[in-house]
């Protein structure tokens, strides 16, 4: 198991190098001129050139890249133009918000999609199966920003069931002391149930928006792999041994069926991180997704680079977790190393 993790770590190095290079080139290709931005509204060309030299933007690309990598090694991701803060600090502050939202969405979606998928597979061809398919597909067919707006309109504006879409907490509540950065967890740890409720109520709408979006891939995968497993020989053996339905479906079929589902989760997570960008924009969520969009639109290099690197690391970590989970469930992976 440890060797598997070590191997995985070695494998991600070229990935990270690739990400750094691609990000660097992509951000340099963005239109917009940071020198002009820094020089201020009334600057003339000469002043802009001066700033350009000061920022080192007149150097050849390769030199700029060297400097960038050097800074990176020293843990410096640069400063954001539009918020003026060091990117590292901003990401540190905003990452928990995004992570909490994305995980919440993912968990919501799994809680709904996995039983739905199982049900659809067990009752294959029935109306439940068709309904599940249609509902899940409809969910993934809605653009997230549209879903988000609709939910805000209905549940906040029309019905008033949901609090104002103002980020993680309403304006007058105080955030719990930072322990994990996840408000739900922190508020429980510090025993502030009021805060827990407040942050949960803020999470529900954006969480559902993401959850609805990721319903389809998870339900679809669960159904497909459940079907495959239910048709397998060992399930037939289990049935022929007279094991009851519950044991057959949960202990025998479901655990095996989870393996491909877990693999899919990695992709769904990446999918959700992308969708997050739009959801955060709709719900004024102070996460890194909205941060990155703003930066991208304003050609703000440093946050974009920082964001993408964070995402890449996150993705790698997530895949590691998935591998470990896989190992926990599947002894073949664990013991083969």
């Amino acid at each position, binding site marked *: 198991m440890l060797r598997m993790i070590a191997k995985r770590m*070695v494998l991600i190095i070229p990935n990270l190098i690739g990400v750094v290079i691609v990000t660097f080139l992509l951000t340099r290709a963005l239109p917009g001129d940071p020198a002009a931005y820094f020089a201020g509204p009334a600057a003339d060309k000469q002043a802009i050139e001066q700033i350009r030299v000061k920022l080192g933007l007149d150097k050849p690309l390769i030199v700029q890249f060297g400097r960038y990598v050097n800074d990176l090694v020293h843990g410096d991701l640069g400063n954001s133009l539009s918020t003026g803060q060091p990117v590292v600090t901003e990401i540190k502050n905003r990452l928990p918000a995004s992570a909490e939202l994305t995980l919440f969405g993912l968990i919501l979606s799994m809680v709904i999609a996995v039983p739905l998928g199982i049900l659809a597979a067990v009752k294959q061809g029935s109306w439940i199966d068709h309904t599940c398919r249609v509902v899940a597909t409809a969910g993934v067919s809605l653009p997230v920003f549209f879903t988000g707006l609709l939910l805000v309109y209905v549940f906040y504006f029309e019905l008033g069931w949901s609090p104002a879409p103002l980020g993680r907490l309403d304006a007058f509540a105080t955030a719990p002391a930072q322990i994990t950065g996840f408000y739900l967890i922190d508020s429980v740890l510090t025993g502030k149930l009021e805060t827990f409720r407040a942050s949960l109520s803020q999470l529900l709408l954006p969480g559902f928006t993401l959850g609805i979006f990721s319903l389809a891939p998870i339900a679809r995968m669960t159904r497909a792999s459940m079907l495959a497993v239910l048709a397998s*020989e060992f399930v037939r053996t289990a*049935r022929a041994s*007279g094991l009851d339905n519950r044991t057959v479906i949960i202990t025998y079929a479901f655990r*095996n069926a989870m393996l491909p589902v877990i693999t899919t989760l990695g992709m769904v997570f990446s999918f959700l991180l992308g969708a997050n960008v739009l959801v955060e924009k709709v719900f004024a969520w102070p996460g890194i997704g909205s941060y990155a969009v703003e930066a991208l639109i304003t050609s703000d290099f440093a946050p974009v680079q920082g964001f993408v690197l964070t995402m890449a690391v996150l993705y790698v970590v997530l895949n590691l977790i998935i591998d470990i989970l896989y190992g926990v469930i599947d002894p*073949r992976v664990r013991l083969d190393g």
Partner: protein
Amino acid sequence: MAKKAQKPSKLDRNRPTSMPLLDVRDLTVEFATRRGTVTAVKNINLTLAKGETLGIVGESGSGKSVTSYAVMRILDRAGSIAEGSVVFSGLDLRTAPESDMRDLRGREMSMIFQSPRLALNPIRKVGHQIEDVLLQHAQVDSDAVSERAIEVLEQVRIARPRERYHAYPFELSGGMCQRVVIALALACRPQLLIADEPTTGLDVTTQKAVMDLVVELTRERGMSTILITHDLGLAAAYCDRVVVMEKGHIVETAQSSAIFKKPEHAYTRKLMRATPRPGVTLRDLLPEGESARPKAVAKTAEAKAPAKKVKGVETPLLVIEKLVKEYPRQGGAASLAKIFAPKPAVQPDMFRAVDGISFTIARGESVGLVGESGCGKSTTSMMVMRLIDKSDGLIMFDGEDIGAIPARSFARLPLRKRIQMVFQDPTDSLNPRFTAARAIADPLLQLGGIPRDEVRGRCEALATQVGLPLNLLDRFPHQMSGGQKARVGIARAIALNPDLIILDEPTAALDVSVQAVVLNLLQDLKDSLGMSYLFVSHDLNVVSMLCDRVIVMQTGKIVEQGPTEQVMVAPQASYTRDLLAAIPHPPL
């Protein structure tokens, strides 16, 4: 799971023994398919006495498995019992509620399936899988259950059961897995065991061990057994009575001692004849009065055969010397890690699949390469075929060192024409998107140098040669039967008039009656075209009928080689003797 009290059985175990344990009357099973209802089994009558072993024999599609599923009531969603009754120990299984059936399954009647590895949950410890069954049927308290599971493992002669209790299926050999499956089936001491092709896919030596175990255990406990198999020999060797099924009907029921001596039904006779056994020729396998030899073959035979023989009587066609193939023990991913390691960390263990073997094949000779799975026979054939590269040694073909040519560039050499192959699985070896004609034409187009407009004519000639009806040429593989697909594969192999054909278990996926026809066809083609064969197989009986010489391999090495007669009758190596002894011997 809560502790359950020992449930009283619904069945009376102490009924008079005169009544059959299982009584199947007029059983008809239907499947709803897209083309309407298909009757898989029609009006079947079976009885099974307590302690009796019944064999159900038939080829694929005969309905033998469906019968057993119907008895267990584990038919697929689409299948249903349309008519008849199944009475087990006085209980009508057709009308019994599902909960009763669940209690019966595993407790009173058990089933073991073919491919034991697939029959076990891959991610659950085998001990726990046995416990699941024990707990389900409340055989034992939950605190004593693991001891009981270990006991059950011990009963199926698994060495070190305490360790194996914690093993996962993938850590066990195929034979060991089958023992676990048997343990699972017998854990609750049922009265009836249904074994559905329990040894298919296992090596003969393992097959014997498993069958002996089943018989021993069931006898010991006075259980009744139904053995479902395609192998008449196996059934006759282990069963008291044999039922022969064909296309959903029972054609004959007889004591197994009688059935080989006095087969009543024509189908039984055909099946019996087609079963390879020592001391018969290929022709004997065919039903009386039939010949596999297509007329076209006979015609061309005289014209072509001598021409090939003239060329080199002196030098053998193929010379293999000290051939070695090594594989790294670890998987492919390790190689990437190596790139980033400063030095090659540890020299990975090399595993020798083929370990310095030498043999020759003369022109026009057919040589059998026999061994159990994993002995290196397939690797050898792939190297000779130049589909993979050797690690060491020499492969001389017609005086040329073809082993030195990388497999990658061999494909387009003219030499390629001269070595061809017939594959094990006719379905797998035909491109699902190519028609038969296109498949046969492929080598002609690539290497044949035949003008395009003549290709069709050549295909038709080849089809005639292998006895493939011309109207099948435009069909896709899924529209043909196994035997037809095998013929297409053979036609493709001979299309370029090769000097050497490697036959890689060409009949392993076929029913015995089809096997008989295909083997005869191969023999006829060899006679008429004068090719050499390297026949790779696990089945000594089959090999002995087709081959002049036999090579026996074990763990990458040749343990014995010699003329067929000598190897079969007076084997030198003890391994060969084991192999021969393991072949089921029907009471003839």
